[in-house]
C-alpha cells in the first residue's frame, strides 16, 4: 500500500500496537531545556528510575537566559528564580550524564536552532521536546513533536511515547514565491487560511515546487509554525538540500555509515500515489509579505491589506474573537497595515534566528537607521554559532550601526521569560511565532512578520512593503 512520509516514519518507529489501538512510538532524540525538564527529572528520581538512553538526550538552556551580560556566565542571571532553573538543568545533566551546551558554551542556543546546527537532528528521526515548536525539526523529514512535561518524563524513562497515529494533511504550494516573500510569509498565509485549529489531529506534509525551492532555514521556519495551525508535527521530504545541510555536521554520521544513512534517507518521501486525509493547495505567487493584526496567528493579512472589520465577518464566534483582538491591539477596522507604527522590533526566536534570517534582516536595513519612534530593536541570534557567523560576515556591524542591539543567543522576547519584554501597549514587529495576549510582555502588542519586514519596519517606524523598499 502506498505510504505518506509520515506513515513511513511512524512505521519505522512503531514498537507495537496495544489492544486499545494506541502505539508505543520509539523516540530517537529528546531535546531538553531548563523550563519543562526539572519536574520530569524530579519525577524520575522520586521513582528511582534510570534514564533509558543517555545518548538520546541533548540539553541547552534557552527560555529564560538573559541575552546581555553573557560574558558573566551564570552570574549574569540576576533573576534568582530563573537562575535556579538553569542551575537545576546543569545539575540534572551532570547527575544523569546528559550532554549539555551550557550558558558559556558557544554551541548554546535555542534548542530548535542547536539541534539541526549540530546535526543532532537527522532525517527519519523521531524527536520530542517539552516545547511545542519542536515541529521545527520536521524540515528534515523527522517526526518531531512538542510534548508536556509528563511525556518528557515518560520518554526519559521508556524511550517511547504512547500515541495514536495522526491523520495525513498535505499542504501543496505550487509556483514560486515573489522576491522578498519568505517562508515566514508563506507559513503565516497558510495559517491564515487553515485557521489556528485547522490541522488539529493531523501531521502536515508541506509539498510542491515552492517548498522544494526553500533552503533548510526556510523549511525550518515553515515547519516551526505547524503547531500554530493545530498540527503537532509538520514535515518536508528529503532531497539534496536536506542531505547537503546535514553533511559534515558534528553529530552527523561519517564515512560508510554516512553513505548507508543517505541511502535510507532518500526513501523518506511520500509515495506518488499516497493518499492524504486532507489537502490544501496554494499558489505561492499569490502570497504577499504578511503582518498579523490580532492575537492569534490566524489573524493575519498581506502588507497591502487593511485591518478587517469584525462586523463584516460571517461567523459569529470569529467576529467576536476579532473584536476582542482589535480592542486589545488598539487597532481600527479598515486601518491600513502600513499605517501601524511600531515601538519595538524583535528579530530572533526558533522561527527566525538562523543565519539566513539575519542576512535577510541586515539586507533590508539598506544603510538606514532605526526610526526615532522605535524605542528598541533587538537582534537575538538563535545560537552562539549563528552569532559568531553573523559577526564574521559583518552583519552584527550592520545592525549595530543602524541602532539595533546585538545580543547573545536565547528565546528572548519571543516569550519574554527573560528581561527582554514589551512594555504595556507597545506594538512590536516580531519575527517570532505567537501574537497571543501578553506573550512578549504584559499587555504588549505583537505583529508577526518576516525578518526583512521587521528590519524594514524598524527603519521606517511603521510597517512597509519590502517588495517596494528593496
Amino acid at each position, binding site marked *: 500500500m502506498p505510504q505518506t512520509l509520515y506513515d513511513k516514519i511512524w512505521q519505522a518507529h512503531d*514498537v507495537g500496537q496495544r489492544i486499545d489501538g494506541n502505539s508505543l512510538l520509539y523516540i530517537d532524540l529528546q531535546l531538553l531545556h531548563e*523550563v519543562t525538564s526539572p519536574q520530569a527529572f524530579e519525577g524520575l528520581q522520586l521513582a528511582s528510575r534510570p534514564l533509558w538512553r543517555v545518548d538520546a538526550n541533548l540539553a541547552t538552556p534557552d527560555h529564560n537566559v538573559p541575552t546581555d551580560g553573557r560574558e558573566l556566565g551564570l552570574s549574569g542571571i540576576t533573576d534568582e528564580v*530563573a537562575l535556579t532553573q538553569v542551575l537545576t538543568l546543569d545539575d540534572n545533566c551532570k547527575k544523569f550524564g546528559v550532554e549539555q551546551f551550557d550558558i558559556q558554551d558557544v554551541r548554546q542556543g535555542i534548542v530548535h536552532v542547536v539541534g539541526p546546527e549540530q546535526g543532532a537532528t537527522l532525517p527519519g528521526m523521531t524527536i520530542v521536546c517539552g516545547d511545542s515548536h519542536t515541529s521545527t525539526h520536521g524540515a528534515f523529514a523527522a517526526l518531531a513533536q512538542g510534548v508536556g512535561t509528563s511525556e518528557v518524563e515518560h520518554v526519559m524513562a521508556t524511550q517511547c511515547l504512547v500515541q495514536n497515529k495522526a491523520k495525513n494533511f498535505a499542504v501543496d504550494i505550487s509556483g514560486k514565491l515573489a522576491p522578498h516573500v519568505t517562508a515566514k510569509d508563506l507559513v503565516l498565509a497558510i495559517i491564515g487560511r487553515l485557521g489556528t485549529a485547522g490541522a488539529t489531529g493531523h501531521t502536515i506534509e508541506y509539498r510542491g515546487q515552492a517548498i522544494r525551492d526553500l533552503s533548510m532555514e526556510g523549511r525550518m521556519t515553515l515547519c516551526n509554525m505547524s503547531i500554530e495551525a493545530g498540527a503537532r508535527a509538520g514535515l518536508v521530504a528529503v532531497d539534496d538540500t536536506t542531505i547537503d545541510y546535514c553533511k559534515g555536521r558534528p553529530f552527523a554520521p561519517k564515512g560508510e555509515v554516512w553513505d548507508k544513512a543517505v541511502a535510507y534517507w532518500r526513501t523518506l518521501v511520500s509515495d506518488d500515489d499516497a493518499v492524504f486525509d486532507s489537502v490544501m493547495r496554494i499558489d505561492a505567487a499569490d502570497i504577499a509579505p504578511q503582518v498579523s493584526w490580532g492575537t492569534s496567528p490566524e489573524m493575519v493579512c498581506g502588507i497591502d491589506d487593511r485591518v478587517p472589520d469584525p462586523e463584516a465577518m460571517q461567523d459569529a464566534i470569529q467576529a467576536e474573537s476579532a473584536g476582542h483582538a482589535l480592542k486589545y491591539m488598539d487597532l481600527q477596522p479598515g486601518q491600513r497595515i502600513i499605517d501601524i507604527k511600531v515601538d519595538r522590533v524583535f528579530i530572533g526566536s526558533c522561527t527566525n534566528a538562523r543565519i539566513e534570517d539575519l542576512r535577510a534582516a541586515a539586507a533590508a536595513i539598506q544603510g538606514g537607521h532605526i526610526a526615532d519612534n522605535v524605542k528598541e530593536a533587538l537582534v537575538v541570534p538563535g545560537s552562539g554559532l549563528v552569532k559568531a557567523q553573523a559577526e564574521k560576515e559583518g552583519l552584527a556591524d550592520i545592525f549595530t550601526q543602524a541602532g539595533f542591539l546585538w545580543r547573545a543567543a536565547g528565546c528572548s522576547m519571543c516569550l519574554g521569560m527573560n528581561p527582554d519584554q514589551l512594555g504595556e501597549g507597545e506594538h512590536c514587529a516580531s519575527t517570532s511565532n505567537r501574537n497571543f495576549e501578553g*506573550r512578549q510582555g504584559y499587555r504588549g502588542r505583537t505583529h508577526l512578520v518576516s525578518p526583512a519586514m521587521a528590519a524594514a519596519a524598524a527603519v521606517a517606524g511603521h510597517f512597509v512593503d519590502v517588495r517596494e523598499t528593496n
Partner: protein
Amino acid sequence: MDSFTQLEGMTAPLDRANVDTDQIIPKQYLKSIKRTGFGDYLFDAWRFLDQGTMGMTPNERQINREFVLNLPQYQGASILLARDNFGCGSSREHAVWALKEFGFRAVIAPSFADIFFGNCFKNGVLPIVLDAKVVEGLIAKSDGKFTLHIDLKSQTVSDGECVYDFTIAPALKQKMLNGMDDIDMTLEEVDLIKIFEAKHKASQPWLFRG
C-alpha cells in the same frame, strides 16, 4: 495519578474561542521547578488588573471584578465550559496543573488543542468534547447554581433534565478510571521495547551515539 470516575459540580463559563495556554498560565510563572503552586496564577492577566510575579498571593493583587471566574456566583466551580480549540499554543503542562489546583477537574468544550488534551489525561483532569450547540446551551444555563453530573464510566454528562453522551478513547478512559501511571504501564512492555531497540540500532546505527 488521581483517578476520575464521577464529578458533581458547578459550571463556570469561559465564553472565548482559541484560549491559549499563555492565557491559562503566563510565562513568568514557568520558572518554577515544581509541579505545584500555579493555581493562584490561573488566567492571571484576566483575573487581575495588575501585573503579577511569582510568589505574589491573590490578596496582594488587584482583582478584576468583571472577569467571570471572579464573579461571586462562580466561586467553587469545578467544571469549566469553554469554546473551540481550548488550550492551543504552548505545550506547557503548567496550564493543566494551574486549572487543577484552582479547582477544575473537568473542562467541556467543542474542541481542544492536541497537546493540552493529552496533558489533561496525565493529571486526572477530564477534557470532554461535546457538540458546539450543546456547549452553547450549557454556557447559557450557567448561572452559578447550574450543576452537572459527569459519569466517566457511562460516558455521560447530565444536568438533571438532559443527558449528553460523550466519546473517549477506551485506553484513556481506563487510565482515568483507575488513575494508572503511564510509565508503569509502558515499563510492563520493557522486553518489547528492548527487542525493537536492538533491531532499530542494527538498521540505523547512526541514531545511536553511545
